[in-house]
């Protein structure tokens, strides 16, 4: 603790502290989307948020991204308030919809954040080319989004989120709209990209296998009000060692059933039979 370097290591990528978010309703007390949620994400760690619809996982991500403000509690990103972290461009973000600008080419879309933040033309070109190669779209740099498949568009969106080499990636169901085969391939690529970039990731998903395959830790949320039910450490080793065969691994299945049991927990107790609706268990 005496040197600044050891202090820097101690600063978590994300620190969510006692955060609640209540959406005001015209009548009544409003909807509690998140209730007293606390969570810490270490630098370089991959954390998934999973839970049934309405558990507030996307809300939590939007709060971390400072797209929304918590009703109470506080959120720090790399030790700074979320707002400051956004202004400093400490994170990259990808949504379920690729959200590419249709009038820009693949390269143009990836360059967008760099352009907005005043990076020179030559540096922009170089960085875009690097990222396009990273997501395997080198032949498509000059294509427009409407000429790409959904999976390719999503890869462009991921490349765009990586443009400014952020140490934190926020992803809101980025593969949610893709078919299963494309999805698995994208997961493998994401594991590889994360290993290469060393970025921490907060990843919202509906899919249990996806969460288990990608994550160091899986945060299981419950709905109404949104709370953390449990956090599962997957412990499948460093992301760099993860490959396609991991999906056959025994540890993978153990974690899978653990997360599944947690999600269905209230069903077993008979408290809320519809509790796990909206979660894919395949």
């Amino acid at each position, binding site marked *: 603790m005496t040197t600044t370097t050891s202090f820097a290591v101690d600063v978590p990528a994300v620190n969510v502290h006692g955060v609640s978010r209540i959406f005001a309703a015209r009548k009544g007390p409003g909807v509690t989307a998140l209730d007293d949620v606390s969570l810490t994400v270490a630098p370089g760690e991959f954390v998934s948020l999973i839970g049934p619809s309405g558990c507030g996982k996307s809300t939590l991500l939007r709060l971390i*991204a400072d797209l929304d403000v918590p009703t109470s509690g506080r959120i720090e990103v790399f030790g700074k308030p979320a707002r400051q972290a956004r202004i400093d461009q400490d994170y990259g973000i990808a949504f379920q919809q690729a959200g590419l*600008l249709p009038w820009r080419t693949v390269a143009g879309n990836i360059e967008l954040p760099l352009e*907005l933040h005043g990076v020179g033309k030559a540096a922009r070109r170089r960085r875009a080319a690097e990222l396009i190669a990273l997501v395997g779209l080198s032949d498509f740099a000059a294509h427009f*989004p409407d000429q790409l498949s959904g999976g390719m568009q999503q890869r462009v969106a991921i490349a765009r989120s990586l443009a400014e080499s952020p140490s934190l990636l926020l992803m809101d169901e980025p593969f949610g709209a893709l078919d299963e085969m494309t999805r698995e391939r994208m997961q493998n690529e994401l594991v590889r990209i994360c290993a290469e970039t060393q970025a921490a990731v907060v990843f919202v998903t509906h899919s249990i296998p996806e969460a288990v395959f990608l994550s160091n830790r899986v945060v299981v949320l419950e709905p109404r009000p949104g709370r953390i039910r449990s956090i599962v450490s997957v412990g499948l080793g460093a992301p760099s060692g993860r490959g396609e065969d991991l999906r056959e691994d025994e540890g993978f299945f153990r974690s899978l059933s653990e997360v599944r049991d947690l999600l269905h927990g209230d069903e077993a107790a008979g408290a809320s039979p519809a509790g796990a609706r909206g979660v894919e268990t395949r």
Partner: protein
Amino acid sequence: MRRDAHVHPRLRGGLFGLAGLVLLALIWELYKALGPVDGVVIGTLTVLPRTTDLAMPHLWVMFDRLFEPVTGAASALPLWQAVSQGSLFTLGIAAVGWLVGVTVGLALALLMQRFRLAESAILPWIILSQTVPLIAIAPLVRRWGAQIQFGDFTWESWMSVALIASYLAFFPVSIGALRGLASPDANHVDLMHCYAVGWWKTLWRLRLPASVGYLLPALRLAAVSAVVGSVVAEVSIGLRGGIGRLIVEYAGAAGNDPGKPWAPIFGSILVGLVAAGFVGLIGLFLRRFRRGEASA
């Protein structure tokens, strides 16, 4: 594979347009040849016009008339030349009106997009403004304009006409631009927020490009409105030199020179086509911002 699959769609559109024109000409001549001389009358109501040469001149009479002098006077220009001059004059005024209208319309849309309050304050007035008949405001504009004078600048009649044209032109632009500026997905707006860029950068990089698809039809409508506004305002203000004046002037000749009144009508149609074509040209340059439309 259909045989005409290789025909360019734009070319095909042009061919269809031409076919429509030929059809119209055919209907005109057919009715003139076969219709009753006194027109189709139900009770005391004439529902289709008389087919005499005075009421419905042959198309070639209208065409031939274009190449004869305007009047019997020795110095008279050929009709087509007089009409062309009038058309250019009106086109110039309409262009000024269009530019002013587009500028004002865009400015209003930006203001309304920027400030919620401005939208609820201005929008009803914009819509209300279009319910005032043109004939009512023309004399007002003229009278007010006549009082404007500072330094070397004096308000001229053609400026009144241009102002009235702009009064018609600004409306579709402000409404279209407002819708266009609000058209980006919530996703894109969120993204700009994540990038921590301000309103102006968001406008330039996101809202303006996204609005092109809404703006182009509005600009075309504005161009046509500006032409119609100019022609009508020329008449109500009594400005000489434009197509509006020629329409009124030549209409008096219909009694013994049935081909003549048609010339300025064709002229005004031509002006409208040129104006719309100009906007089409703008659209050609903004092609890349309309990719969404093409794929949709």
